[in-house]
């Protein structure tokens, strides 16, 4: 069965510091991987997906198939990055049920 693990429930950094939110997955094939973000009092929304290989709001995430990881990184955290972040996996065939990690709460202090 597929699984997504976000080992940190809470990540606390100061403004300007680098941030890395970890995501590890277990799936034998080539899944679609996503990062979703939920800012305070806003709905959950897509931040980025691995196939687009883009940088959104300064965040990037690289799929490492060898380590089965999809960590989210930003070199210089901003206060407005404070939010709940979820890593998610879509299996490529058969099941259409995505698997979400438990989420990491990022707090960026001024």
């Amino acid at each position, binding site marked *: 069965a597929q699984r997504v693990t976000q080992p940190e429930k809470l990540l606390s950094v100061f403004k300007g510091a680098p941030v890395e939110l970890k995501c590890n997955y277990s799936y034998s094939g080539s899944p679609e991987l996503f990062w979703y973000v939920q800012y305070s009092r806003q*709905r959950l*929304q*897509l931040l980025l997906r691995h196939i687009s290989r883009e940088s959104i709001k300064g965040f990037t995430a690289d799929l490492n198939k060898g380590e089965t990881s999809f960590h989210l990184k930003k070199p210089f955290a901003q206060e407005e990055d404070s939010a709940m972040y979820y890593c998610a996996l879509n299996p490529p065939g058969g099941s*259409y*049920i995505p698997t*979400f990690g*438990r989420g990491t709460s990022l707090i960026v202090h001024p």
Partner: protein
Amino acid sequence: GAGVSQSPSNKVTEKGKDVELRCDPISGHTALYWYRQSLGQGLEFLIYFQGNSAPDKSGLPSDRFSAERTGGSVSTLTIQRTQQEDSAVYLCASTRDRGRGEQYFGPGTRLTVT
């Protein structure tokens, strides 16, 4: 266009009562999901609808939970004989086709069972 909408935004009910939560997906999206979001538990999949196919109910936690989707659009999640452990935020999401790609989420319904 309009995003996914859910109603009510908040619902407080007494233990033992039934509740109905509504989701209106993005027009044209054929796939619809219900999730439960609890503090520290992440997103728990409940049920998945795809077009007119039979729903995947594998995530429903008990037979007190049911959902239907009328006309391939609006969906209602019903919780019968609510319990305190049902208190959570219930999220609805839709995707364009067969659950691939980005999920578009509604604002959620916060359910509190007293």
